[in-house]
């Protein structure tokens, strides 16, 4: 572990100048991640209706993950007085990020030639003509598909500070976080040149992240952890009964996350082909394996298999397979799922209670831990025949280090940037609702509504 730690230390700083060193030491062949424009760089790309059909569908599926999926998953876990406020966070984030992505976010993430950040030259989706293509699909579809990722990532964070953040501050934070944290990291990992080669520095280095282990889950998980610590625990945490008020909502939510995740992972092939099919299969297998491994672990340790446990395990599996989904095969997926279920169970129970932060709905425990597990194991189980890159099991042990490096960079950058953003917002407008508002519940105090 000493090597990546060193890398992490090197890797942080304004210019992150160690790219050269690292690319010499670590980089394999450039792994085309999202493959937006990857197919046949020589011939003029033409629109493929089949691929476009699948990407339109995938976009709808990924939107469904956030609303209503995540809104329900989180909404069912809070106390009754906060359910509307919690669901509203996912919904409002969806709206806010949509507009910001269109105004400038997409430009920051997916234009330019810098390995660190995109340009400002395509605000308001300038240059999106009806005919513009990204690979074999319209660029408008690629832009939309990526937008749904930009939406769910901040929405995931809301689980960490449930029940206590001001709605206004939450909006400001999420908007800033999209531009300052999400857009650059997305660029580092997924920005490709027209010829399909990686532009972002993590992509160039060969970090594998098929559908968002670092960009989405580690990113959101770490941001959530920082937010939970900065905001402090809920009033009554550890003494009051904070049992989830209605887990039927969480079961619906987890199920829609699962179904929608096929768009997330298999959609990241940006084609309706064998790689998409394999991504869907490994997603299903890892998810089921993690759900079972969480369930049996809890059954063993706590005597009862809980509904919250099995659905949490499923989400843990979905998270962990995300970076791996275009790179590993069925047995790799099974292994990743089994490990992720146990590790996230530990993250959401022992670790959280040992360290005493109040990550209310386990944004870090599930997405942070699951994302890290998945990112690293991608380096272990990657199969050359599937994604073009071999993993440690096929002899390429360096890939594990590359993966750890990617995790480290993301982790450190997110943690620092999130911390600064939150502190600034706290100074300017405050982060937490008043104790009275918190006691009364967000539904009534912030939104003037309640479940009758």
């Amino acid at each position, binding site marked *: 572990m000493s090597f990546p730690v060193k890398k992490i230390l090197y890797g942080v700083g304004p210019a992150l100048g160690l790219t050269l060193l690292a690319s010499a030491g670590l980089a394999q062949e450039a792994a085309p991640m999202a493959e937006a424009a990857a197919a046949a760089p020589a011939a003029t790309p033409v629109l493929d209706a089949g691929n476009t059909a699948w990407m339109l569908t995938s976009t709808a599926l990924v939107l469904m993950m956030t609303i209503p999926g995540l809104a329900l998953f989180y909404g069912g876990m809070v106390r009754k007085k906060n359910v509307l406020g919690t669901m509203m966070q996912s919904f409002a984030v969806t709206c806010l990020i949509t507009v910001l992505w269109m105004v400038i976010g997409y430009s920051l993430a997916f234009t330019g030639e810098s390995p660190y950040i995109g340009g400002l030259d395509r605000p308001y989706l300038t240059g999106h003509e009806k005919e513009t293509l990204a690979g074999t699909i319209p660029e408008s579809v690629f832009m939309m598909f990526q937008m749904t990722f930009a939406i769910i990532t901040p929405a995931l964070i809301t689980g960490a500070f449930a029940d206590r953040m001001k709605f206004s501050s939450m909006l400001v934070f999420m908007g800033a976080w999209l531009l300052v944290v999400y857009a650059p990291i997305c660029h580092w990992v997924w920005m490709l040149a027209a010829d399909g080669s990686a532009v972002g520095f993590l992509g160039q280095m060969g970090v594998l992240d098929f559908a968002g282990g670092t960009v989405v889950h580690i990113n959101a998980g770490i941001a959530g952890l920082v937010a939970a610590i900065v905001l402090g625990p809920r009033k009554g945490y550890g003494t009051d009964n*904070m*049992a989830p008020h209605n887990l039927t909502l969480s079961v619906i939510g987890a199920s829609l996350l699962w179904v929608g995740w096929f768009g997330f992972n298999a959609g990241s092939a940006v084609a309706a082909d064998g790689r998409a099919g394999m991504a869907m299969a490994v997603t299903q297998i890892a998810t089921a394996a993690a759900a079972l491994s969480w369930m049996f672990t809890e059954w063993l340790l706590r005597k009862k298999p*809980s509904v919250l*446990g099995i659905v949490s395990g499923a989400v843990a599996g979905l998270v962990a397979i995300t970076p791996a989904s275009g790179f590993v095969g069925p047995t790799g997926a099974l292994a990743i799922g089994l490990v992720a279920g146990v590790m996230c169970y530990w993250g*959401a129970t022992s670790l959280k209670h040992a360290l005493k932060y109040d990550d209310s709905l386990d944004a870090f425990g599930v997405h942070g831990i699951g994302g890290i597990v998945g990112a690293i194991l991608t380096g272990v189980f990657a199969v050359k025949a599937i994604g073009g890159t071999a993993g440690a099991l096929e002899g390429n042990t360096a890939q594990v280090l590359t993966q750890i490096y990617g995790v480290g960079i993301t982790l450190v950058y997110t943690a620092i940037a999130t911390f600064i953003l939150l502190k600034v917002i706290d100074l300017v407008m405050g982060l937490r609702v008043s104790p009275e508002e918190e006691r009364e519940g967000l539904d009534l105090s912030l939104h003037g509504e309640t479940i009758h």
Partner: protein
Amino acid sequence: MKLIMAIIKPFKLDEVREALTPLGVQGLTVSEVKGFGRQKGQTEIYRGAEYVVNFLPKVKIEVAVNDDIADRVIEAIQAAARTGKIGDGKIFVMDIGQAVRIRTGEANAEAL
């Protein structure tokens, strides 16, 4: 007249109601309540956080009766609600000074 208030286990409600009909009780009022007592609740565990549920679901029956049948009503409730296990509940009896039937304005014994 007496107000007989009985706190019982929820699944005993129908049996209790049926036990009262032969005694001439024509009405009663029921509330869902939560009881704290010697009986201990289940532990719920959510991602490692344990909540011992101190308050158990009970049903409260309030029935107004004439003094003459009060004792028999109490006995009938006790017999019907009893399982012999902890948490079976309690019966409390209070005096009613006055009773009115809203529909007719009838008072006291006629009101029940």
